[in-house]
């Protein structure tokens, strides 16, 4: 008990004149997500450790001093997507296990706020993951600094991350309602991530060559962008129904 109880008293009415708008609600949800992750460290450290460990395994398994081109791009994107799956699987766990879903559904807010906040949360997780994983990848597998390839790589990663965040949020919202959520999440997400792997790896491949790195092919960047847009619209349309009974 926390000391002497305060005397009970009636409180004045606090009912707001109108429901909260979309973006302040997204901000409140995003703040809550980041606070919970900062306190538990359940997602980002696991994702980062997974990626670095996988690069170490590739470093020894391939038994080469460095990789480049298609092989390097494939290793980078597949590793990042598997690491992202760890975050996708945890995305709604606190809400489902601690009643946050019900608390949110009872509030007079736009349901899309939860979709947008989860996409932004997963995007933030992916950015932190890549801050750790990309330098580790360059150190363990490229054998040379990224240097001039970095701007092109960042642009490609940004488009890939957006797709992963949108699809990951949609899939996690479906999987968390089931008993086999840890299995269902990856099973649903991985096939949907295939176009992101293809577009990301093809766009990144010309950047990861030791001599005269090129620029990402515009058509693959466009492919990633269109895929992001398509799934963004699908997820925005479907998300409210996933939250309903």
């Amino acid at each position, binding site marked *: 008990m*926390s000391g002497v*109880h*305060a005397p009970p008293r009636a409180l004045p009415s606090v*009912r707001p004149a109108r429901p909260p708008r979309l973006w302040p*609600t997204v901000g409140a949800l995003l*703040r809550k997500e980041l606070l919970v992750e900062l306190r538990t460290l359940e997602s980002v450290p696991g994702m980062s450790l997974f990626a670095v460990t996988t690069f170490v395994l590739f470093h020894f398994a391939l038994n080469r001093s460095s990789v480049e081109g298609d092989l390097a791009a494939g290793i980078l994107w597949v590793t990042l997507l598997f690491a992202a799956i760890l975050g996708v699987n945890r995305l709604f766990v606190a809400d489902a296990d601690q009643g*946050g879903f019900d608390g949110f559904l009872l509030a007079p807010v736009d349901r899309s706020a939860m979709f947008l906040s989860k996409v932004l949360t997963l995007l933030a997780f992916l950015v932190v993951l890549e801050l750790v994983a990309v330098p580790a990848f360059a150190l363990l597998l490229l054998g040379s600094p990224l240097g001039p390839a970095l701007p092109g790589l960042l642009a490609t990663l940004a488009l890939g991350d957006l797709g992963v965040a949108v699809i990951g949020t949609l899939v996690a919202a479906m999987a968390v309602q089931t008993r086999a959520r840890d299995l269902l999440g990856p099973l649903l997400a991985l096939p949907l991530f295939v176009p992101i792997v293809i577009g990301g790896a093809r766009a990144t491949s010309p950047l990861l060559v030791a001599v005269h790195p090129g620029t990402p092919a515009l058509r693959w960047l466009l492919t990633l962008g269109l895929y992001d847009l398509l799934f963004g619209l699908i997820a925005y349309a479907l998300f409210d129904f996933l939250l309903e009974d």
Partner: protein
Amino acid sequence: MAALEVEGLTRHYGEREALADVSLSLDAGQTLVVFGPNGAGKTTLLRVLASLLRPHAGSVRVLGSSLPGEAWAVRARIGLLGHEPLLYRELTARENLRFYARLYGIEDERVHELLESVAMHGRANEPLRTLSRGMVQRVAVARAVLHDPELLLLDEPNANLDPAAIELVVPLLAGGSGPNGLRTRVICSHDPSGGLAQADVVLGLRAGRPALLRAAAEVDPDEIAELYR
């Protein structure tokens, strides 16, 4: 004016019938107490009234709005205190209440007042996972009344509370800023004497079906005990 109008409400979970043909009416400012053994459908009834579950048959009107179609119109006027506190264990009591205050468009001042009212201001900055279940329940009460709801749906609200804490939360759960200063309440209870003392209307459920529906003044405590046999 009726705050609740339920007619022929039925709700299934797969093949199992959780509620069958439940009808009732409750005026604004009145308290309905629902009795029944575990699995009788009490929590399901609360979740339907809170718009968290859809009725599979029948009609439900809450505060003049039909559910589930017009749920958006009444959500801000309903408070729910269920078995789960609907709070995040890693956040502090203050952070949890501030989070919900943002979702309801309420000023932080109200959070401060409620933390004092439930005597949690001294532990308000500690993560909920470090607090006792009674303390978490006090914070959950504050969350449920944060937006001063006209209709409160309460599932064993005194669970885990000591007598002093019960004295603290009773006025918060009973009194609102409505015309008569009283909230409309639906309370699920296993306590015949305590429940009857608060009730205007009593509903007894057995296996999802209404076995008793009468004004509290006309109900004998033995009839409630009979529901559990």
